[in-house]
């Protein structure tokens, strides 16, 4: 607990709700309903000073429409810009999809704890992603590739409903060609095409087939809740302990500051204490995830 500000005793603190202005530099269409936005802060100082960890998120403001939290999909090792991959779902995301290059948006953050990158050093990393859930993993994957010597082997298992739903298609190729990185792609049965060279099947099944070893390894997983549920079963079968499994949770994080009161799971605020948790931590929660 921090010391309570005595009325009348302090300088006015900075405004925690005021976003920084950022311009959209580039928009890439990943799939039919997912776009990746490259954002550059208007303020040159901020472009240099804005630092973050993979797994952290920002509050993305469309002035006049609304604000929503999105994870940072870019790697902090690539300086000068940030990227978010956004699926068209509701009011704000629809407005975001209507944006064009050069449009101005607001950014608050970064918020949350982020992935424990330091702890990952010297370990084998297994990434298990589904659909748009690859976005936060992408941040970490590029971070790992850019600092390749700090980490051991990398295994990536990524799947989506169909080939068209795979995100970062160009980057997947780059990852595949990186030494020490083993990428397995899969699509749900029925989502394949004739020339599809990857696997066909749900992510947990393919993960079992890839069969990574739990020794000196960490699993980082993100995707739809149903996928995570079965990925955990698979990992359990393969003798991964709950401390070795890291995921990011999704909640409605309106303020990102641990104040607005809706993202808590028990006394834990996902926006402040998370969104990254080990499965061992999650097991302690009373509420269902």
């Amino acid at each position, binding site marked *: 607990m921090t010391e309570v500000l005595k009325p009348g005793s302090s300088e006015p603190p900075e405004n925690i709700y005021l976003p920084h202005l950022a311009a959209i530099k580039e928009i890439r269409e990943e799939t039919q309903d997912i776009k990746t936005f490259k954002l550059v802060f208007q303020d040159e100082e901020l472009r240099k000073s804005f630092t973050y960890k993979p797994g952290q998120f920002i509050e993305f403001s*469309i002035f006049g429409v609304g604000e929503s939290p999105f994870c940072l999909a870019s790697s902090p090792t690539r300086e000068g810009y940030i990227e978010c991959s956004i699926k068209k779902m509701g009011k704000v995301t629809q407005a975001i999809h209507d944006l*064009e290059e050069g449009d*101005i948006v607001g950014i608050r953050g970064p918020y949350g704890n982020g992935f424990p990158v330091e702890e990952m050093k010297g370990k084998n990393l297994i990434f298990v992603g589904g659909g748009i859930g690859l976005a936060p993993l992408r941040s970490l994957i590029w971070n790992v590739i850019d600092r390749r010597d700090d980490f051991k082997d990398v295994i990536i298992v990524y799947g989506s409903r169909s080939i068209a739903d795979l995100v970062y298609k160009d980057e997947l190729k780059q990852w595949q060609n990186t030494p020490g990185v083993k990428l397995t792609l899969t699509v749900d049965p029925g989502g394949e095409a004739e020339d599809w060279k990857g696997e066909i099947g749900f992510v947990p099944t393919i993960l079992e087939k890839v069969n990574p070893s739990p020794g000196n390894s960490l699993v980082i997983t993100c995707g739809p809740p149903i996928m995570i549920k079965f990925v955990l079963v698979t990992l359990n079968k393969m003798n991964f302990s709950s401390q070795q499994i890291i995921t990011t949770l999704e909640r409605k994080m309106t303020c990102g500051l641990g104040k607005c009161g809706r993202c808590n799971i028990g006394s834990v605020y996902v926006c402040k204490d998370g969104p990254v948790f080990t499965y061992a931590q999650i097991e302690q929660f009373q509420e269902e995830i």
Partner: protein
Amino acid sequence: MTESREPNTEQQEEWQPKIIGFLCKWCSYAGADLAGGSRIPYPANIRIIRVPCSGRVNPLFVLKCLENGADGVLVSGCHPGDCHYSEGNYYARRKFAVFKKLLEYLGVDPRRFQVSWVSAAEGEKWAEIVKTVVEEVRAAGPNKQLSAPVDKCSGAPVKRKHLKND
């Protein structure tokens, strides 16, 4: 859109009433079209929104218009018996009869919400109705009851075209 694209009429020149018209596409819209095609003059204070049927108009549309700065709203449909969907305008008639009473009861100026039947052949009648409605709303003055006149902002995101070319 935060910069109003029109000159601020209220300050620069005489205030002009702004009226939103919800017109059924089968009768009243065609009627308005006829008025235009026949070069029958009527005031330009009305902005027309075409709807499939007067029965489609939710009273919330009317409220929203008044809330967002319209000075008056006119709903116009087919004459009873002429509805393309047989009975849409009959339902509309009941709905707006009640809604009009409610607005009046709450003290909203009754001139701000009006209903008319205009057929596809009634270009003259359309022009007359618009004239009357505009005059009545003009007499009622700017809508200060339901609208919040301070910020004219549609709530659309900041687009590049709103900014100076750099």
